[in-house]
């Protein structure tokens, strides 16, 4: 019995990590855009959907998941750049409420546009043949190989982002943009191009997340919105504008959410009937990340790693 619990725990820890790394891909773009440009972008979930749809259709056409995945990332980045040039650019100097309204409108446009192009039935997308199957964990449990690959991709992206921001000229400008927007403009940096680039990069990461997860879930209209809500929780917990905060926040939310779903019903079973425990447990599990957010904000109102002091 003890062994079963230990393997179950290990497996759920991996599940939490996998959810966390996917949330990180979403949250890092969101937090960069907010930190550098001061923009609240609700349409970030639409880039996630664009990535998944492009990957699904290109994979179906070419038969290669890798080609599809690349197409998904490129499509999300291109759509992101286009949206920045056409719409977002006009919003930087507007109040946050205007930004929320405009980007919410973008969600509706993207959703209906996707439905118009692809229909309302979900698309089919599966992991590539070589990544199906499972590996055996210490303790004997089997774990899907594809989920391990997702974790690895997430970790690689995190390292890549860290190097980009701390070691390159672009990263230096991003950091400068975070601390003083007007000053880097005055120093002769082409702000407009920097903003488009950051926005497209965030969109590409969202597209990557959508494409990777799309192979596990269903590729359908509106798939980005539930993830977007969690990604907002992540950046609030981590501290808005902080990549490091996004990473810690994402993993924290991923692990807490997963563990809550699995172990809370069992916990409530100690003092109520199994059917009640299942109901109450899953209801509390659904609230858990928000409770976590409230607790963290009570002690650290700016999040764990606030970017602006």
């Amino acid at each position, binding site marked *: 019995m003890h062994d079963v619990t230990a393997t179950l725990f290990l497996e759920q820890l991996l*599940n939490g990590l996998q959810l966390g790394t996917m949330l990180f891909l979403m949250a890092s773009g969101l937090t960069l855009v907010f930190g550098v440009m001061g923009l609240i972008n609700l349409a970030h979930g639409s880039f996630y959907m664009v990535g998944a749809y492009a990957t699904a259709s290109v994979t179906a056409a070419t038969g290669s998941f890798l080609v599809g995945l690349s197409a998904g990332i490129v499509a999300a980045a291109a759509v992101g750049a286009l949206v920045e040039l056409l719409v977002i650019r006009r919003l930087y100097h507007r109040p946050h409420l205007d930004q929320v309204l405009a980007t919410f409108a973008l969600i509706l446009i993207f959703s209906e546009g996707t439905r118009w192009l692809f229909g*309302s*039935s979900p698309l089919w997308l599966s992991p590539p043949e070589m990544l199906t199957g499972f590996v055996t964990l210490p303790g004997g449990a089997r774990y899907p190989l594809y989920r391990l690959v997702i974790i690895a991709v997430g970790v690689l992206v995190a390292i890549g982002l860290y190097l980009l921001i701390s070691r390159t000229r672009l990263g230096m400008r991003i950091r400068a943009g975070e601390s003083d927007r007007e000053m880097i403009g005055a120093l002769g940096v082409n702000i407009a191009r920097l903003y488009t680039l950051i926005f497209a990069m965030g969109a590409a990461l969202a597209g990557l997340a959508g494409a990777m997860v799309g192979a596990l*879930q269903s590729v359908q209209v509106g798939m980005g919105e539930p993830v977007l809500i969690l990604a907002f929780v992540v950046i609030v917990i981590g501290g808005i504008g902080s990549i490091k905060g996004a990473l810690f926040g994402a993993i924290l939310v991923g692990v807490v959410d997963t563990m809550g779903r699995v172990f809370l019903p069992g916990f409530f079973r100690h003092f109520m009937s199994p059917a009640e425990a299942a109901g109450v447990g*899953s209801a509390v599990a659904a609230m858990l990340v928000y409770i976590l957010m409230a607790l963290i904000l009570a002690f650290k109102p700016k999040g764990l790693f606030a970017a602006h002091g």
Partner: protein
Amino acid sequence: MKTIASLGLGLLMTSALTAAQADDVKIGMITTLSGGGSHLGVDVRDGFMLAIEQSGRDDIEVLIQDDANRPDLARSLSDEFMQRDNVDILTGIIWSNLAMAVVPAAVRQGTFYISPNAGPSALAGRQCHENYFNVAWQNDNLHEAMGAYMKEEGFERPILMAPNYPAGTDALAGFKHRYEGEVVDEIYTQMGQTDYAAEIAQIRASDADSLFFFLPGGMGISFMKQYENSGVELPLFGAAFSFDEIIIQAVGSAAIGTMNTSQWAYDLDNDANRAFVDSFREAYDRTPTLYASQGFDSANLILSALEKAHPSDQDAFREALREADFASVRGKFRFGDNHHPIQDVYVREVVEGENGQPTNRLVGLAIEDIQDVYAVDCQM
């Protein structure tokens, strides 16, 4: 598709130009055509309009509106239909929570409501009404039938899983009602959940011999795809809601070998059904789902009653509906005292079709003449 849309538009325009004839019939359809799960509403609509078109009657006007899966919108659409358009009959609602927002008020005001899908327990029991007819099923029926089937097949330790919302808890209650044995565990997931890794690990850690689940729409697609690569090999069972043609095509090979219960199957052998499936495929270029069959049956029920009486003669029209004098694509069909079907429920297996895509194949009867348990509470 286009012809039907323009047909509807044409009907709408002619009625605006010429004052409607007194004996014309107006039907208001409120259904889900956008947002999550819109393929259910699209199929109900397409099945319904196919039957209206085949009837060749030009005195029936069908007004169609999209409720976007929102109860408040459905409610205001129904008010509009009743007060502005003076419809005789309402139909179309997919989701039980929307039905609860619309149906009780509509039937109290003297409008007929013919349900092509949602069958919440309240409307079958204490809140039943003489002007409310359900052509599809009471929500529990298909789950109950699967409980009976798995009991008979000798599964002894099923584990159950459903989203934590009314239809989810009803599904598990319905299953247990006929299964009557011990279940290993009940897992409640979140509504709209997309990742099931945690639940799959729990299923693996249990000593269950089978899994019964109810995850309609995109939830079922996500779950089955993740289940396939998890290395867990328990057989999967559920009601047809998680296994309609559109869902299993999106799931792909992971769906093959699963079993589900349905009151209808496209390969069910009767004349009405063969004609329906052929004409549906010709008109829309896809295989109909159970939702399309329910839309088709709903329209044919209404048409059969219209042959005998006009809805303005409420008593005569109601009596005509009660007789259910139409060729259902399910074969035999009759109403119980609470105006819900008493019908056979079948078992289908998902197999690989001719084009390599998964498809449902009829296996046999799960339960004969099932009637919902709420009928006894109905005082009409």
